[in-house]
């Protein structure tokens, strides 16, 4: 019995044995990302190239994919458990949460941030510190149009409506445009066009005339002008555009490569049309994708990560990223490259960025999103007026922020 037990135990115990290693000297880099499947080959190609660089002998980069919300939950859980990944590749909106919890480290002093576009760096700053290194610029909404259904882009909303009327009549469309009405992110350009913004500093600013006007504007599009379908989530609006059932869609820059594959030269991209009634450009939220560094990083491992981030965002790779993914570069010198200047789609995308506003990364924004979402849905189905909804959003957001801090 004893011999049998020992025979079973010894090989098993051997499996527990591992060479003693200093964590800071480890050459294994763990990266978590939330990119689309189409982007993954590009990521892997850059990582493999880094592994082959002189001085990277023995370095291995392990990339793990999560969906956006899963990435956040998994990173929080792993950080609480004390075993976070070394690097995150993610938009800026979660940086507030991670920084307050102490799970990511500021990157000031580790990188020369003056090399990157100023707005994209500003979008990741909070409490005087920078919490990520920009990979790409944008993550913003803009106007896409199908040139077969509407040959050119509108400059303002009045022109947009007349183009819509023509397209609907000529091509017998049920609707002219596809808008993701239920999601507050899609409302923000119009709030900006009416002169408002959802967060002033760290205080919600929802019970405002611009918020009421922007909701009324959506109602007008759906019920009066009947240009957009009422019940349509992201997948639905995306499908309507791809299936050529609508001429226009407002969607993010992440969709450029997919739409280009589908429509080729028949795809048009433009700024969201200027709001005729105010004469202002809609202001989509602008951020980008960022590298965020775990607060556990130190010593040799930190220096290795610095090298990787600098390599990933060097001019050569930024231009390569533009060509492969059609994403605006974060590096100022790459933004001046011919690849950006000569491509009509990227040029329009950059023009949209310039009229956008940085996405707030304060943790309070979470409460603001969740306060807007159910009430915006009620406004769209007309069980609440814009006035009632705006007042309640404000109360709810303030209450949720109080509960988070309590």
């Amino acid at each position, binding site marked *: 019995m004893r011999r049998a037990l020992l025979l079973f135990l010894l090989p098993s115990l051997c499996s527990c044995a591992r060479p003693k290693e200093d964590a800071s000297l480890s050459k294994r880099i763990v990266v978590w990302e939330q990119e689309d499947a189409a982007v993954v080959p590009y990521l892997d190609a850059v990582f493999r190239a880094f592994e082959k660089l002189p001085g990277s002998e023995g370095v291995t980069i392990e990339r793990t994919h999560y969906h956006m919300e899963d990435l956040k939950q998994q990173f929080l859980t792993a950080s609480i458990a004390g075993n976070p990944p070394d690097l995150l590749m993610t938009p800026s909106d979660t940086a507030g949460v991670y920084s307050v919890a102490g799970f990511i480290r500021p990157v000031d002093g580790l990188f020369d941030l003056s090399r990157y576009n100023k707005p994209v760096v500003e979008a990741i700053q909070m409490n005087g510190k920078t919490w990520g290194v920009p990979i790409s610029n944008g993550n913003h909404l803009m106007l896409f149009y199908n040139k077969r259904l509407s040959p050119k882009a509108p400059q303002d909303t009045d022109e947009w409506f007349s183009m819509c009327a023509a397209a609907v009549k000529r091509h017998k469309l049920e609707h002219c445009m596809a808008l993701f009405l239920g999601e507050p992110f899609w409302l923000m350009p119009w709030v900006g066009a009416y002169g408002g913004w959802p967060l002033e500093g760290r205080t919600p600013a929802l019970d405002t005339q611009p918020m009421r006007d922007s909701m009324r504007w959506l109602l007008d599009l759906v019920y009066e002008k009947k240009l957009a379908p009422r019940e349509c*989530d992201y997948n639905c609006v995306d499908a309507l555009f791809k299936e050529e059932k609508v001429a226009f869609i407002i969607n993010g820059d992440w969709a450029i490569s997919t739409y280009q594959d589908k429509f080729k030269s028949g795809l048009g991209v433009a700024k969201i049309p200027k709001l005729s009634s105010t004469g202002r450009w809609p202001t989509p939220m602008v951020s980008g994708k960022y590298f965020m560094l775990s607060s556990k990083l130190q010593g040799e491992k930190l220096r290795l990560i610095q090298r990787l981030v600098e390599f990933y965002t060097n001019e050569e790779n930024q231009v390569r990223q533009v060509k492969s993914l059609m994403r605006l570069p974060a590096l100022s010198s790459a933004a001046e490259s011919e690849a950006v200047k000569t491509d009509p789609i990227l040029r329009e995308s950059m023009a949209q960025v310039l009229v956008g506003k940085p996405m707030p990364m304060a943790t309070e924004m979470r409460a603001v999103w969740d306060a807007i*979402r159910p009430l915006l849905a009620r406004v769209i189905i007309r069980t609440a007026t814009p006035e009632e909804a705006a007042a309640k959003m404000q109360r709810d957001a303030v209450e949720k922020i109080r509960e988070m801090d309590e």
Partner: protein
Amino acid sequence: MMTSMLQVLQFVALIAAFVALLELYLHVHFAHHDERWFLPASVTVVAGLAALLGRSLVLGVSAAIVEAAVALFFIHVVRGRHSLPFMLLAPGLLGLGLLIVYPLCFEVYLAFTDLKLTTILQWSRTGTLPFVGFKQFVKVFTSSPLSEVTFWRLVLRTVGWTVVNVGLHVAGGFVLALLLNRDIRGRGIYRTFLVIPWAMPQVVAVLALRGEFHSQFGFVNVMLARLGLAPVEWLTLHPFLTCTLINVWLGIPFMMVIILGGLQSISRHYYDAAAIDGASAFQQLRHITLPLLKPVLAPAVTLGCVWTFNNINVIYLVTGQAGGTEDADILVSALYKAAFTYYRYSYSAAFAIVISLILLGASLLWMRFSKGTESVYG
């Protein structure tokens, strides 16, 4: 691929090593409990190993105290008896302890402290959290994780959701099971088709059906239009009803399978005897089928109630992507929002304990009044 396989193999080997160590530990305690050297030797070895591996004197002393208690238990209570059952049960019990008891204890700890976004940093640095007594439980009853729905309305809605869903699961499952229990041609094929919603992954089933409830392109409205009826905006105007319909569709096959199993275990002799006595079909159903199904049905209904009460999947998948309405939220989906949207971990722990207590109380009452655990043949 190869690396992943090696990691899995390493993990399996680690588990095996752990189980082997546990069995060795138990074997020593069973085999040598009556030796004079056993108590001092076991305390010294365990304390020494703990202090060495944990590099902490406090850990060593704690391990010595625990080991002394275990050794005394083996010397005076177990006394070398029942060694096989103990050794067979030990890995399972330890697994349960690690996967259920420890998280449960931790949840209770969280409920009496204050872990939230702004205290995570303090917790990860010091390992301690401020004790707040019953404050989180008071908050559970006096506030709501949702903007528009109070806690008590959520409780009522959840009870309604559970009763309606389980009621329809049982009714639908019962009717289908009665039909399938008859000698009909192609019974196996019908049964296979009817079980599909339950057999396929719930995420796939829910998302597929959610698409069918789309106001413009969904199958449901297409059929309504064929009948000359106006389209209904299911997801926007009636999210709770939509979730209920989807969950009813998902839940009926489980009840059908359970009830069919119960029906097939009832001897034909009861029905033959009843027929000879002139009992009608309804009388046979009432006096034979239903009483004899009770031992099968009562636990199934209890399980169904617990699953439905805690069913976040359907609510989240149907409404989470449809504009974030709160009109279909039940207790667990609200709890999810509190924990993962607002990072109120301690509040959520207290909320979860309250939900568990509600379920425990309801289950005990149901088992008592339904007398579902009593034998009907005795």
